[in-house]
């Protein structure tokens, strides 16, 4: 019942165009994460969805209704802010009652709605506290509580977890995902943290410089980034990206040179490329294997031992930084010279425009 669709939305602040024509369909009941670097226009987009800001041009429909000119309150949306924006002088209960009062809901009805929301979020015993006496995670939950009491048809989240510490962030991610399953309401979630995008989203919208770079399911973006930007942005540790020049290219292969005389092969459709052309080569750290012989020769600089896996940071002879993920612990030490090898079907190639080259067409047997 509450799909959201944006048509050619632009937003200008004075001379700068912050959103440059956004077309987007958000399915009813989906969990969509809008991700992108700081300043790319995520918040602006979300605020336009909320009605806190209006687009310079373009139109916006929620549940089939044109809401472009409507007040936030008329859109049946709720929003959770990065810093929670709980009303500091009101108790948790009053915070949650605030939107209900606007709806002129009766006292008993209000109490019931609050209890229901408190139940879902397990904050029943906090109802009489002021926000100042809550921990970060509790505040987060209350902010969500304030959003859900109104039973909106779309939830908007603007980096709701970025003020929490790592452990809590991990925990709240899971809780939010569970909440979405429970409520089934459309959720639009803005973050600059690709880990959040990857772990929570059903669909990710990657925004860059006011434009949509790619839309897709998390693993699709991870495996098949459409552009160099998406490739570098999605995945932690980030994809290794190297400058290279084309040596050979055909419909199923590209061989490129990185650094002096070091070749690397990628299984992509290289038909658009000419030898000598400048391209970028991308390899995910977990697609790089540490090998004693062969591969790209590197010298290890830093090892990050996380327990279940170790991230190996290294530099090529040319000085370029590369990282690889090794499962579990490792005997390797900084200063070691090893090779890093990537299978050709895991190597990505990006044209100088930034566009990814597609995998070769299935051989028509």
């Amino acid at each position, binding site marked *: 019942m509450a799909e959201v669709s944006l048509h050619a939305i632009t937003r200008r*602040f*004075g001379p700068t165009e912050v959103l440059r024509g956004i077309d987007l369909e958000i399915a009813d009941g989906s969990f969509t994460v809008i991700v992108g670097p700081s300043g790319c226009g995520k918040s602006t987009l979300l605020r336009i969805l909320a009605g806190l800001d209006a*687009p*310079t041009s373009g139109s916006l429909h929620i549940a089939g209704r044109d809401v472009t000119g409507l007040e936030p309150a008329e859109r049946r949306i709720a929003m959770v802010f990065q*810093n929670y924006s709980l009303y500091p002088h009101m108790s948790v209960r009053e915070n949650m009652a605030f939107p209900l009062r606007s709806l002129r809901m009766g006292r008993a009805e209000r109490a019931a709605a609050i209890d229901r929301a408190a139940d879902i979020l397990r904050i029943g015993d906090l109802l009489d506290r002021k926000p100042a006496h809550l921990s970060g995670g509790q505040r987060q939950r209350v902010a969500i509580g304030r959003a859900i009491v109104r039973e909106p048809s779309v939830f908007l989240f603007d980096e709701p977890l970025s003020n929490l510490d790592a452990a809590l962030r991990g925990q709240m991610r899971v809780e939010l995902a569970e909440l979405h399953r429970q409520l089934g309401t459309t959720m639009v979630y803005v973050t600059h943290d690709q880990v959040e995008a990857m772990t929570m989203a059903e669909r990710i919208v990657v925004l860059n410089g006011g434009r949509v770079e790619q839309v897709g399911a998390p693993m699709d973006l991870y495996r098949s980034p459409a552009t160099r930007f998406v490739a570098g942005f999605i995945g932690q540790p980030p994809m290794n990206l190297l400058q290279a020049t084309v040596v050979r290219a055909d419909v199923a292969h590209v061989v490129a040179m990185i650094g002096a005389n070091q070749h690397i092969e990628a299984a992509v459709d290289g038909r658009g490329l000419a030898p000598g052309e400048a391209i970028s080569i991308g390899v995910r750290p977990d697609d790089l294997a540490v090998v004693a012989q062969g591969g790209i020769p590197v010298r290890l600089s830093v090892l990050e031992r996380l327990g279940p896996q170790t991230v190996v940071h290294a530099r090529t002879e040319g000085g370029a930084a590369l990282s690889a993920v090794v499962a579990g612990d490792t005997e390797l030490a900084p200063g070691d010279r090893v090779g890093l090898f990537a299978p050709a079907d895991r190597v990505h190639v990006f044209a100088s425009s930034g566009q990814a080259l597609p995998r070769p067409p299935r051989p028509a047997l």
Partner: protein
Amino acid sequence: MSEIRSTRAPGPRGRVPISDNDHAPARPRSQSRWKTWGPALLFLLPAIVGLLVFRLIPIGWAFALSFTNWRIFNDIEWVGLANYAHILTSPVSREVLGNTLWFTAMYVPGVMVVSVTLAVLLNNSLRSSAFFRGAFFLPYITATVAVTLAWRWIFSTRFGLLNHLLAQVDIDRIAWLADPAWALPAVAIVSVWKDAGFYMILLIAGLQTIDPGVYEAARIDGARAFRRFYAITLPLLSRSLFFVLILALVRSTQTFEITYALTNGGPNRASTTLAFYIYQNAFVHFEMGYASALAYVLCFVIGLITLLNFHLRRRWVHE
């Protein structure tokens, strides 16, 4: 909408142009403009009415009067620029203007030094600080006339407490209130004494917005107390200092109650400042036209100083 923006939006606060055309979203014009302007206008209505009726009307009226020789109980006679011309040529008004500048030169630095010192000394969590703040604020709230009488007693030449104390360190009696060299300084002392507590409160408030971590960093960096004061505290307090400076400047040109009760402008005009002279002309001699002209000269001087300060502000105030 322009000022309602994300806290993370870059750009110095308050610099965003107010004109709506720049970033206001394209909305159906007439209707939604009034939706935003209407409430704003209602909110400002009391202030605008007050400004018009109780500020601008009397001010404009007084300005018109400055071109007359109105003596309140007399009929009004238009004299053109005669009042202004007289102010510029009269040796008395030159003397008074000189006194005003001299008073400002004593009062403003004096009150700033004292209030900064007090603020710095009291910007801590010592339990006794609240008491001292109160004690230092007390002069600001005690009735000027009554407390100035106490000061007359302190300044008394022969039987005064101050000269008595000075005698202990072999300093000769000073006729504080009757010596032209000392009368204005005495007024300045009492004025500083009276106002320092108020500015102190403003400055403590300013100090409390300074991140204590910066002081710790400075200690780690080997800066001793004095260097921390002039290299960290002063620059980081500069916004407050500027605010206090402007307040103090304006006040220095407007104090007359203390002069009135302490020296009556004497001896022989030695402590007559412009504000007191305006008071004399307005309410003792009832030369309202002349007093109004003097007031506008005063406004001009304050305005000039204030503008100068705003101009110099960039040099020493750190945003």
